[in-house]
């Protein structure tokens, strides 16, 4: 990588890209809605169904937090990358001296900010509406959220490569997002889930993430008890990073 010339310091460029992404995020009402209103709706709906069952309410908050991590990274990045790729914005950026790392640094920081905001919203809502205490282990919460963000962000970028055009993005993303969420929620909640479903859920990254968040937010059992969950997330993350980088396309898919 070339050394700094003029104002083109990669860290400063990354910061500028981040600020631009934030500005554009707030100007796009549907993105803002899906990122902030949706988890709250899930929380309210789930809270209404489970009202009077405090144990289940304790499960609900980390489950929604886990889903929020996935939607702000996997879903949002798959959408964004396909949109920017098919519209030719990525190709235009590729022709400028903006370093690739600075660009993706800004994009990733933007996703991380959305995740952090959602975790904060869900945590506060859990305390205000469901009487759940503040997270027991902040470090553990931080570690699992960060691991989840890296893992699902990489998987989102990698998954974007399989999506041929912007029109089919919703179908592709939901075909992954919804089953993963349902299986993970079901297995997380039910002690009587069939073994094969349990195995599937444990092998996917969302259920281990929710386990970790549950420990951090509710029970307070430390990271040491949840190393295997972190390993599963890390393996998916490594898989995601390899395919995110290897298959990356800056240009429209030619049909």
């Amino acid at each position, binding site marked *: 990588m070339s050394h700094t*010339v*003029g104002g083109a310091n990669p860290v400063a460029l990354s910061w500028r890209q981040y600020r*631009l992404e934030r500005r*554009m995020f707030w100007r796009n009402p549907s993105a803002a809605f899906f990122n902030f209103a949706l988890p709250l709706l899930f929380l309210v709906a789930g809270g209404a169904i489970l009202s009077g069952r405090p144990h289940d309410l304790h499960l609900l908050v980390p489950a929604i937090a886990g889903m929020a991590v996935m939607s702000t990274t996997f879903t949002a990045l798959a959408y964004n990358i396909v949109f920017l790729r098919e519209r030719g914005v990525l190709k235009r950026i590729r*022709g400028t*001296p903006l370093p690739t790392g600075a660009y993706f640094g800004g994009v990733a920081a933007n996703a991380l900010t959305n995740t952090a905001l959602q975790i904060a919203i869900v945590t506060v809502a859990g305390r205000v509406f469901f009487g759940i205490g503040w997270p027991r282990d902040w470090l553990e919460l931080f570690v699992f959220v960060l691991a989840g963000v890296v893992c699902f962000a990489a998987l989102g970028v990698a998954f974007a490569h399989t999506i041929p055009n912007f029109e089919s993005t919703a179908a592709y993303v939901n075909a992954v997002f919804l089953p993963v969420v349902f299986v993970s929620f079901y297995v997380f909640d039910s002690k009587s889930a069939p073994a094969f479903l349990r195995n599937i859920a444990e092998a996917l990254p969302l259920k281990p993430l929710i386990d970790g968040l549950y420990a951090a937010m509710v029970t307070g059992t430390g990271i040491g008890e949840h190393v295997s969950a972190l390993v599963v997330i890390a393996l998916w993350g490594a898989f995601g990073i390899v395919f995110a980088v290897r298959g990356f396309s800056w240009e429209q898919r030619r049909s």
Partner: protein
Amino acid sequence: MSAAIEVHALCKRYGDFEALRGIDLSVHSGEVFGLLGPNGAGKTTTVEILEGYRDRSDGEVSVLGHDPARRELELRRRIGIVLQSAGIYGHLSAREALNHWASFYPRPRDPEEVLALVGLAERGDLSARKLSGGQLRRLDFALALIGDPELIFLDEPTTGFDPEARRAAWETIRSLKALGKTILLTTHYLDEAQALADRVAIVKDGRVLAIGPPRELGAGAADYRVAYRDADGALVEQQTDDPTRTLHELTEAALARGERLEELSVGRPSLEDVYLELTADADDPATLDTTDPAEPARESATRAGRR
């Protein structure tokens, strides 16, 4: 004059398909160079290799002394690219986009100045979603110029423009040349190449068929053409490399017969003649659109009929 771009024996293969079959050209510093050819000739492939978007299969390429395939930041700081089509963030205004793009470059131009140059000063705060196609194309120009590049790539910059917008774009390109910029332009409009380019390369099927200043291009190939109407009113055209002798013989014979040679003319082949001759393709006669770009061919035909 030093060369801004040197291309030697450039080849590009996609599987079995040979998109470029040995392109040779050099673009001098400070000139406007036109790549002219029908759709699918290899113009965009050539330009995208020079811009660093594609790898070449074979051959030598040098852009401002760099190999574009290495994608060095140093090179991208010195070039500006107008792609054939590229989107921009819909939720940003032209002014915001230019200010952001300016931060990529070590010595950018003033965004306000660039907005004015491309004629977007009054639309600078409108979000890009609300700009018309022509205004977005001007924003493409502005974003390519913001870094104050030495070398500018324009891939079919005026396709889809109305005549007025084309003239405005041509003026912008001339003003860039006046600033000493080097410009590589692809187009399938002959009048555009004729109006703007110092030199032109005619490309077809991945090969350079002819190269030189637009006025001189035909000189070697088709020589002179002598035309007149004979006694029956039919148009006769002769090709010759010695027009003096041909004219002398024709007029002598005509005088002896007591005829006038109506509509007698001597001409050099125009860029259009050279182009059509070189790119003629038996099974695809309509590869070139010589009509006004803003008008569908049908319409200009009916107009000509009305005149």
